């Protein structure tokens, strides 16, 4: 027993991430990680609300809040939030996904209390007023133009998601619909905050140069008085029906080089098969020696690039493959080569040596990922929310180790089914359509 345990831990090159965890009376989850080597601390709040929690006629709300919550609170004036964080030598940002919204500050460690006060302010009483709403609406419209409309291939995710999901709210993209945002009233925004931005739907993470006791005391001081939200949260319980036939479309875009997109529905993020699917995507396109890169980019030179990645989501994401043909190459030709190679994997699986290579790559990736305080904060928060335990960050490699060679072949057959996929061809728009 002891022997095998020792062997196991030497196998795992990963350094353990120590942490403390506690739940406040109002339901707020607190995770703290201490590392005094640099005098900074990352303060992050993960709200378990993303675009999937929105109503179909009010999409884009979660992302809208990502903007709105920088506008100010009852005690912090408009425009002051960002200025304050910068004026104490900190930085801040936030992002929204289909499942969660994540806000963070990284501040010099002597300003930990300030950062906690500020995060508690926007949980307790953010200012949701007409000026802020009107401004951020315009900003988000420009964000959408910059990310999607004015950018070649910018609509890929929107076009893919709306076909990959017939029922599930993943069918709309995070930035949502500008019409919905235009139509929404102030009261609706306020209600959305009351529904989701509450302690019992949040995880607060501190990582960096902290003293556990002092940090916990400040957290209690600023967060304990925030009232709990509803006991139940609206989380869609939609099972996306299995597709029986391929969905295939052409999208015309302002591009010169076509693109081929294939999307296959995935199991929920915390499903045991996720690890094998991640390894499969690495086998296909991770690194110069990966199957598709070697064959299509180097040998046949049909592709400028091929990329496969599992977009893992709480209720089941999509496995996206993207191939860009080199000039003069017919997209159909490239697509049939992609399909041929995947079929080969399904039929023959992968070799022992390739499997060993995949394990080495995964080990490297996981060991490398906790290189910053903000990164550690984020990984701890995600681990807590998606896997129910922050300690998942220390176990992830073990889960990858459990994947067998046969699992990779099996998941290729089980999930990369051509009869249930979405295929899009992005083609240059004829010029006079503009």
């Amino acid at each position, binding site marked *: 027993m002891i022997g095998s345990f020792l062997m196991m831990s030497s196998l795992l090159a990963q350094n353990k991430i120590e942490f403390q965890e506690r739940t406040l009376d109002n339901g707020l989850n607190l995770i703290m990680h201490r590392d005094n080597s640099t005098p900074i601390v990352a303060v992050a709040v993960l709200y378990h609300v993303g675009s999937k929690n929105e109503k179909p006629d009010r999409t884009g709300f979660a992302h809208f809040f990502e903007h709105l919550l920088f506008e100010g609170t009852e005690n912090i004036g408009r425009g002051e939030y*960002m200025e304050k964080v910068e004026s104490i030598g900190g930085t801040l940002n936030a992002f929204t996904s289909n499942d969660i919204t994540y806000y963070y500050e990284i501040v010099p460690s002597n300003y930990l209390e300030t950062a906690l006060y500020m995060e508690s302010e926007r949980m307790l009483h953010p200012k949701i007023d007409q000026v802020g709403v009107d401004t951020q609406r315009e900003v988000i419209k420009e964000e959408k133009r910059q990310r999607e409309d004015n950018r070649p291939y910018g609509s890929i995710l929107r076009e893919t998601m709306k076909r990959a999901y017939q029922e599930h709210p993943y069918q709309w993209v995070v930035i949502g619909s500008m019409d919905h945002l235009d139509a929404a009233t102030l009261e609706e925004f306020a209600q959305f905050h009351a529904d989701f931005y509450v302690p019992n739907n949040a995880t607060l993470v501190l990582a960096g140069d902290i003293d556990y006791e002092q940090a916990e005391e400040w957290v209690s001081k600023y967060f304990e008085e925030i009232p709990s939200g509803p006991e139940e949260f609206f989380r869609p319980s939609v099972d996306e029906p299995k597709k029986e036939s391929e969905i295939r479309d052409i999208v015309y875009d302002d591009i010169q080089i076509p693109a081929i997109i294939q999307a296959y529905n995935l199991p929920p993020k915390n499903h045991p098969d996720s690890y094998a699917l991640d390894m499969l995507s690495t086998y296909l396109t991770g690194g110069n*020696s990966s199957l598709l890169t070697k064959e299509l980019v180097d040998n046949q030179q049909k592709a400028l690039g091929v990329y496969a990645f599992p977009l893992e989501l709480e209720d089941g994401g999509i496995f996206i493959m993207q191939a860009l043909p080199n000039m003069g190459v*017919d997209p159909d030709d490239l697509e049939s080569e992609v399909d041929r190679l995947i079929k080969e994997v399904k039929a023959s699986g992968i070799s022992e040596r390739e499997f060993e*290579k995949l394990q080495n790559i995964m080990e490297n990736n996981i060991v490398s990922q906790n*290189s910053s305080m903000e990164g550690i904060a984020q990984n701890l928060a995600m681990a807590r929310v998606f896997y129910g335990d922050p300690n998942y960050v220390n176990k992830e490699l073990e889960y990858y180790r459990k994947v067998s060679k046969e699992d990779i072949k099996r998941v290729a057959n089980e999930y990369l089914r051509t009869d249930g996929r979405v295929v899009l061809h992005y083609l240059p728009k004829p010029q006079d359509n503009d």
Partner: protein
Amino acid sequence: MKYIFINLAFLFLIVGNHALAQVDRSSYPSPAPAPEIQMGDAHSFTLENGLKVFVVENQKLPRVAFSLILERDPITEGDKAGMSGFVGEMMMGGTTNRSKDELDDSIDFIGASLRASSNSVYASSLKKHQEKTLELMADVLFNPIFPEQELEKLRKQALTALAQSKDSPNSISGRLTSALNYGKDHPYGETESEQTLNNIQVSDIKEYYDTYFKPNIAYLAIVGDITPEEAAPLVEKYFGEWEPGEVPNHEYETPTPPATHQVALVDRPSSVQSVVRITYPVVMRLDHPDYLVTRVLNGILGGGTSSRLFQNLREDKGYTYGANSSFGADKLVASFTVYADVKQTATDSAINEMLYEIRNMAENGVTEKELEIAKATIGGSFGRSLEQPSTIASFAINAERYGLPDDFYSAYLQRLNAITVEEVNEAANKYLKPENLYITVVGNGNEIYDKLTAFGEVQKYTNMGDPERELELGDIDISAADVIENYIQAIGGRESASALETAKMRLSAEIQGTKLNMIVLYDVPKQRMMQRMLMMGNEASKTIIKDGKATVNAMGQSQTLPDEKFEDVKMSMWIIPELHYENMGYSLELEGLREIDGKEAYKVVVSNPTGGTITNYYSVESAMKLKSESQVEGETTYLAYEEFEGVKLPVEISLQSPMIPFPINSKLEDLEINPTFTEEDFN
């Protein structure tokens, strides 16, 4: 009972609130005493061959990274622009010990990263694979074989990427601003084109490698879970034999800001947003006495989210997702740029606000509060950067490269904090040039051109950053009809030209080694035409015009064009379209003179009754047609003519269209004049 329970809960809540009311939320908590920022040290040593090595030990993660950088002057590549972009991947294209496949596999097998560029090689891996990683890195560095087929692959990819970049507003803007700021003959302003990419040979890459990959201009940073004692023998083992050699120096004239505002527009009709970059070149180096104060200046103007530009254009006006500025620093020359992607209808308003912010800061300076925020922001960012051990390595390398004083980084925060408002204002006055700006926009010309004229004369540029030249027509008394008639005379006269009733042409072209053939049948009296495109012997597309309609077959799909489109296609269905303009009821307009490939040309716009147009350019000197542009066919450039049956016909043409991402040169292989066609020929 339930009622009471709720009441109790309510009571409890009030009590709770009361008890917690002592939390003072009306003001920010006071900070704890400022922590001391501790900076690690880099251990350094120099090999006999001149390679300078820096080791920064950090055991947080069981990883090691090796980063080799060459310190050379920037180089110009001229008619081989893009060459240096191939060097790194060519080095990774195989060595005397390993084929590319073996190399790629060896790297991936241990989960390592290894990449090279024209002035760097970087490798990293888990600690346990460090020796193998070093061996692979050294193999790439010392034994590359530069295979020909790898160059062809890279060229193909670069041409594809270039084509992509021509549609990307940011790439277009980047090319334009570099060309304006530095000039196209400067290393930072050069742009690669299809032509320059096609000029690059394996020998160019070898020559570059032989010239510049020398230990005496190289720095090696080793960062991670490794001690200097462990690193030293490894470095000696893998890099000790590297032969030093003399490396050439290069000097360039320093670009200067424009004398007055220059307004530059790239018309991108599909744009729904305007990419605005206001810029000019600046000379600023890390070792310049004003380096830090210009960081502060930029921070206040457009550094972060609390900066003036961000607050004004985004938070106040909602014109953009983000507005910022950058003040570069470089050994040679850098640029100052104010940038935002803005709402189309607010393009001019946004530019006005940007100009206002530049001028206002130059003239009125900054406030004490802004200075404090900027110091905190820059200092904070400096502090956070120390989280990564690689920062210490780059500090050590910079100190060497620029000959910085020993305390440059250790006293960085002290010097920052000593900066006064007066110093910032002085720098604002000295470095901000509110009268000497390149105001550049990539956007929809139809919507924004007129508004841009408010800022000065608008010069249009191509998506490659070249000026679109327009010449003055002057007093020349000539009509569009005259230009057409002169052309018909120049090719051999109306009579000979009209005698060509049918023709069968075969044209050939080559794209990246792929043979392309085009077969065109013209039947003027019966008003039919067919064009087939063959790729490696297979039909890629076929267009047939007959019986008053046009059908296009491509990618396995067949489409009959709508009437309006048919009218457009019809404009070029003739052997010599100019003979038919009058009969077809087309209107002609002479729009002045343009320069086409260095020749002056009349620009004639031919419009059909449904609004379709073809623009033709006829040489002023020879009267010959030099170029045509149409929405349907893109750009056709006529490179050479030959005479057949008394009529000059183009035998070499270059085609460029939105459907083909780079120009195709095609040659007339054979021509049959007045053959007899059957119905089947047009199926």
